[in-house]
Structures are given as C-alpha cells and as structure tokens.
C-alpha cells in the first residue's frame, strides 16, 4: 500500500488539524498515524470525511495519554471512528454530512478538555525562554573577551546573525502564539461559545514571513559556502592578498605550522560585490621558516573599510603593541612586532608576518616592508 509522510499541523490549531486531514482525505490520503513532526497517510479512495479532535485528560504531561476505552466506545457507537492519537491529541472521523452529533454540545464542558493543552503550551513557552536565554548566555560567555572576533564573524557571514535572530524569534513567537491561541479558545468555550475553527491567517502570514526570511538567510549562506574559491598562494592569483614571494621569501611552500593543512588562499563572496580574502602561507628553506597570515576585506567603500579597522585592531593578539605608521599608498596603517592593520579605499587588511630573524627590530622592519609591498600591490590593482 502506498504511504506518504507529510508535515503535520500544530497540535494547538484544532481547526487547522481537522481541515488539513479532511483535505488529504479528499485527495485520497487517509490519515493512519501522527508522529512527532510528520503524519503518515495511506493511499485510499478519495472521500469526503469530517475529522474531529478530542483532547485527552489533563493528567498527561508530554507523554502518551490514551483516551479511556469506554469514551472511545461511546464515540464509536455515535458514529465517530477512532483514527489515531499522539500526546493529548486524538482524532475521530465520520463521513461528511452523515449526521453524527458533534463531540460536544456544551462548550463549557469542552473547555475543561483544553486544560492539558494550556499547561503544555505554558510549559513549552517557559522551555523556549530558558533555551534562548542559555544560548545567549553561552554566546556572551564564549565571546565576551573576543567580541571583535564575533563581530568579524558577522561581517564574514552577513546573514548569520539575521538567521539566528529569525530562528530564535520564530521559536519564541510560535510558543507565545500557542499560549495565546489555546487560552483564547479556552475563554471562548467558558463563555459558552463554540470552538473557533477558522484558519489563523494572521499567524500563518507571520510564520510564512519568518520561514521566508530564514530560508533567504540560509540560502545566502549556502551560496556563499558554494562560492568559496581556494587558490594557491602565488603572485598574480592572490587577488588583494600578499604572498611571501612578493616579500622576497623564496623557500618551499609547506604545510601550516598549526593544524597541518596546506598553505592556501580562500576568497569568500560577501554579497554586493564585496569579498573576504584569507591567506595562510608558510615557506621553509633549510632550517628556517616564514609565515604570512592575512585577512583582506574588499568592502567597496572607504567608510565601510574605516569602520572595520577598529575591529581588525581588536582582533589582533598584541593590540597594545600596535603604533601608527605612515606608508605611501595606504590611507591608514598601524603595526607592531608581528601584526599590522592597513586601510586603502574600500580595502582593509590584517596581517601577521613571522620571518626568521634574530631580533624584533628586524622583524618589525620586515613587517613595514610588507605594508609597503601591500600598498604597491593595491595601487597596481586599482590602476588595472
């Protein structure tokens, strides 16, 4: 027999569940079983079927709560066939228009059956709030001393923060809406009004918007990951990055001292014509080794590049050792013993250069020459 698994409606949307399963029955898919996220359907003849939800006793807590057999027997004697149930939600069906009495003719009586669902909704809201608070706490604890790295991560993956906010916001909005809707149904029934089975158009619009926003953010990240280019660190192929060969270091290209991966450059698009280049290169000759690590951001505007320079300074290891330096061809630069940060036009770069020297003065001089080489390289790129 053919079977189909499909996303199931939310437990708290009673009208939505009844309509969705009736719609599937009209298309020839009969509900067999409800799972945690999916419902299972079996292929049958299309039929006009009416579904009704019965909620189990409020004594259940997130577990399987069966309806008493005598209750099921009574409903079946009245023409309602038991289909399936999971958690507090149980479904009965009858042929549409067959005249079976509704499950409840006293809304106040039916209101009591919503107590379990109300409690579940409140507990879920508390759980979501705790979850989000923990996530935020972990982010703060993990990044509080490295906040510059966190902000740089959001520059390198521009839709990461919006995606995180959409996911957390969506979870919270869903939990709040569930509490609101079930509470409103309960108050309505207590006033003697029947259950509101109408489609929740406002919520569906909001949720659709959140899904669309999340999908757009995720799609961008996927596109970004698929667009990353990996290049060898050679002159003419390195984009705005420097390579050790341009600094007169001619040893053999070798694996990185940390991590052991091959020396390489990567180019990651940031959208809107902007790019993030990352270079990791180590060369060895005889007993000595030289390494160049760099992040170069092509941001398209001097304002954006100048805004980034503060973050690049904060992300260096020896931030306090950096001092300003005038380099022809660079709008702004600072350098220390091992690290430098530079800006020209819409480009900003952070460099770490380690050369085999006996003292810090030679190391610092080598770094200054690297900044001069970088200025000349960027000038030639701008002129091309």
């Amino acid at each position: 027999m053919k079977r189909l698994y499909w996303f199931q409606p939310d437990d708290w949307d009673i009208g939505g569940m009844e309509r969705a399963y009736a719609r599937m029955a009209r298309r020839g898919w009969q509900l067999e079983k409800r799972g945690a996220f999916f419902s299972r359907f079996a292929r049958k003849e299309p039929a006009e079927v009416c579904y009704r939800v019965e909620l189990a006793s409020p004594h259940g807590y997130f577990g399987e709560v069966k309806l008493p057999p005598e209750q099921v027997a009574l409903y079946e004697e009245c023409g309602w066939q038991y289909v399936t149930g999971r958690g507090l939600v149980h479904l009965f069906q009858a042929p549409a228009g067959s005249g079976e009495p509704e499950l409840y003719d006293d809304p106040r009586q039916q209101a009591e059956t919503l107590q379990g669902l109300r409690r579940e909704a409140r507990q879920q809201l508390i759980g979501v709030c705790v979850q989000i608070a923990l996530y935020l706490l972990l982010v703060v604890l993990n990044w509080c001393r490295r906040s510059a790295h966190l902000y740089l991560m959001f520059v390198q993956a521009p839709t990461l923060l919006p995606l995180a906010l959409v996911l957390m916001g969506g979870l919270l909005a869903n939990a709040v809406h569930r509490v609101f809707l079930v509470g409103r149904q309960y108050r309505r029934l207590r006033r003697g009004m029947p259950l509101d089975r109408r489609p929740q158009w406002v919520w569906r619009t909001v949720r659709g918007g959140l899904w669309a926003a999340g999908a757009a953010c995720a799609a961008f990240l996927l596109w970004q990951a698929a667009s990353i280019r990996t290049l060898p660190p050679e002159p003419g192929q390195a984009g705005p990055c420097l390579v050790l060969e341009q600094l007169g270091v001619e040893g053999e290209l070798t694996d990185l001292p940390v991590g052991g991966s091959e020396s390489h450059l990567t180019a990651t698009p940031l959208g809107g014509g902007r790019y993030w280049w990352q270079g990791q290169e180590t060369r060895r000759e005889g007993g000595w080794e030289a390494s160049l690590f760099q992040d170069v951001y092509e941001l398209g505007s001097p304002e954006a590049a100048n805004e980034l320079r503060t973050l690049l300074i904060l992300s260096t290891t020896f931030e306090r050792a950096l001092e300003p330096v005038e380099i022809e061809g660079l709008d702004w630069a600072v350098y220390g013993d091992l690290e430098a940060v530079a800006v020209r036009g819409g480009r900003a770069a952070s460099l770490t250069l380690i050369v085999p020297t006996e003292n810090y003065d030679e190391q610092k001089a080598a770094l200054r020459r690297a900044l001069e080489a970088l200025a000349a390289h960027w000038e030639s790129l701008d002129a091309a």
Partner: protein
Amino acid sequence: MEQQPMTEAMYYVLLALLRPLHGYGLMQRIGQLSGGRLTMSPGTLYGILTRLTREGLIRLEEQDARRKTYALTETGRQALGAEYARLCRLVEDGAILKEGEI
C-alpha cells in the same frame, strides 16, 4: 447544606440512570425521557458521567473490555429526589402565573 442546583443535563443523566445503562443507551434514554427535546453529544455525556462518578452520585455497575454500565448510588438517588423536589417547588410557586397575578 442546601444542594447546588443541577444542570439540566446532569438531572436527565441521573433520571435516566434509575435503571443501569451504558453510555450510548443512556443517550437514547435521555432523548426518550425529554421527548426528543434534549440530545446530548457523546463528549458532553462522557464528561458528565466522569464528574458524577467523581462526586459519588453514580457508580460503575459492570464493565467489559470497552463498555461501562453505570447506575445511581444511594447518594445520587437522594440528590435526584432533592432536585426533583426543588423543581416542583419552583413550579408550584409559579402557579400564580396561571391565576393572572403578577
């Protein structure tokens, strides 16, 4: 302490259970007793049966795997009698309507 007035549905359930019945039979009996005026949905009936059982007004007479037969307890019989007496008093007091006095 004076008994709280019953709802119409509770009254007819107790009335129908003057002889033991199971759930669906109870629905039919209520329809007969009320002359078709009162029809009760299965969920409403089940909720009332659960409440009356909890309050000790009815008890489980016998049960098989799925069906339960209910019957009045002595407390339930007394409560039914008291409710009937209260309703009779209301009707008697309302006799002035026939006499034309307001």
